[in-house]
């Protein structure tokens, strides 16, 4: 029996595969395709203290091996998530990670506090969304601000805190160190890379927000590089993501230093993607006689 279990901040996951926030809703829609209990964790769409309407349409555009999105963090608010989605997810043998967004530090802390008595396993703090004007990225591009919000969130958090880093910075390791200094338990990276597409026929922007976040296989090499750099510079465990479609892609991140991986845009191309990555990792371990997945983490060299 191969051991696919990994541990993040003292919490054991049955395998290292999870879903990337915003691409999987709260899992309800994808549970019509497979048993969510096959995943290490489900990460829910960013949630705020109150409902957010999001951005105008069009919100997405396909690009070469990827897509741009500016959903604008539309979400039903923490009340609905707690009443409807968390009880639903609890039925599955998987860990629950709630991704949180906000406009001010107080907004984030309010949601973190609401979650403190709820049956969720981790909190993931999105300080890196490029698609909303206030908050979000403002905390994610300045090391001092990142350290401050991490420290503040940690005061209210009862669950381990994952800080989700933006790739839209000059030096990702500086941001990783700031989050570590603020007391983060885990880091996740990367969020989307800011991009733009222009419709030359209509001579206008392809998405209403003008800029959007690039995701999908197009960003994978950037993401692998950043995971590697961060793994070299801090001691915190890393959840790696960015363009993962297959087990081979996921193993690149693990070898670069990620303890776990998230599947995002690939869910749109293949609704079974996350489950298939989990199965593919097991098959790779079988084929290469690897008894414990932990022996692969950061094993590139």
């Amino acid at each position: 029996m191969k051991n696919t279990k990994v541990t993040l901040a003292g919490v054991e996951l049955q395998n290292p595969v999870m879903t990337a926030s915003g691409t999987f809703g709260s899992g309800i829609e994808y549970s019509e395709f497979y048993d969510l209990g096959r995943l290490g964790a489900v990460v829910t769409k960013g949630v705020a203290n109150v409902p957010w309407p999001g951005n105008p349409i069009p919100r997405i555009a396909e690009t070469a091996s990827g897509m741009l999105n500016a959903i604008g963090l539309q979400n039903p608010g923490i009340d609905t998530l707690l009443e409807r989605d968390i009880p639903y997810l609890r039925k599955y043998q998987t860990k629950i990670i709630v991704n949180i967004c906000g406009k001010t530090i107080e907004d984030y802390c309010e949601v973190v506090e609401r979650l403190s008595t709820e049956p969720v396993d981790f909190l993931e703090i999105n300080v890196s969304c490029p698609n909303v004007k206030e908050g979000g990225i403002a905390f994610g591009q300045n090391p001092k601000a990142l350290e401050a919000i991490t420290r503040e969130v940690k005061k209210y958090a009862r669950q381990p805190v994952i800080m989700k880093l933006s790739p839209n910075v000059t030096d990702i390791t500086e941001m990783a160190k700031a989050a570590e200094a603020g007391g983060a338990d885990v880091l996740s990276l990367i969020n989307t890379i800011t991009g733009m597409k222009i419709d030359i026929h209509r001579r206008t922007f392809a998405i209403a927000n003008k800029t959007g976040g690039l995701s999908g296989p197009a960003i994978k090499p950037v993401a692998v590089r950043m995971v590697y750099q961060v793994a070299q510079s801090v001691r915190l465990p890393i959840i790696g993501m960015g363009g993962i479609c297959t087990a081979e892609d996921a193993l690149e991140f693990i070898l670069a230093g990620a303890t776990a991986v998230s599947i995002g845009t690939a869910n749109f191309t293949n609704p079974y993607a996350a489950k298939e990555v989990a199965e593919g990792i097991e098959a790779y371990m079988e084929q290469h006689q690897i008894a414990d997945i932990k022996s692969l983490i950061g094993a590139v060299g």
Partner: protein
Amino acid sequence: MKSREFVTIIEQKKIASDIYSLWIQTEHIAKGARPGQFLSLYSQDKSHMLPRPISICEIDREQGRIRMVYRVVGEGTAEFSHKKAGEQIEVLGPLGNGFPLDVGKKRIFLMGGGIGIPPMVQLAKELDGEVQVIAGYRDELFLTEELKEYASLYVATEDGSAGTKGNVIDAIYAHKLEADLIYACGPKPMLRAIQSYAKEHGILCYLSMEERMACGIGACLACVCQSKEVDAHTQVHNKRICKDGPVFLSTEVEL
């Protein structure tokens, strides 16, 4: 459980310039499908990450087949158009809600504009009553034989080459047509005109909407439209076209 699967192409035929008719063999989709629902079609080119939503044009439940009629506008639809009978295509469906059928009205307009006409074929087949199809084309006609088989057909063309010169609303007035129920699918300006026509005349009206999609199943919030009331799922004035639609009451959405 829902499933995404490779299915066999039974027939692929060009029926007008850039417009193709595709029959696929898929018992389980055909069994559950309703008019107004759609399928996600997947490109086999790895540089395309997103599915292409295409409406159901006809359902053959006996033989387990689905027909779609689509216009080639880009790389995805071009790829589909090159596939021949016997080859495979990857699909997911049926998706979306479809048109409600038993609403107790007998005089019915089915209004289709351009590539919004195909879903009207299966709808015309399944409706009882006085079914009048008003189909708006740019110039070249397609699917008219099928529509005539199940309904009375009125055509409008932008260039006046067939039927009424103008749009579907012009055709209604030209033929002095009346209805107590409207189903419509087509470009947004046409839906807007129909929405206000229905309001003016106090007619119950269902609109089938379109928007770019990523997941196609209600998870990503890419494909929303504005709703008049706060939506129960999203808790904001937004509904998901792929999941809560594509068919909406004309009074519940802002266009």
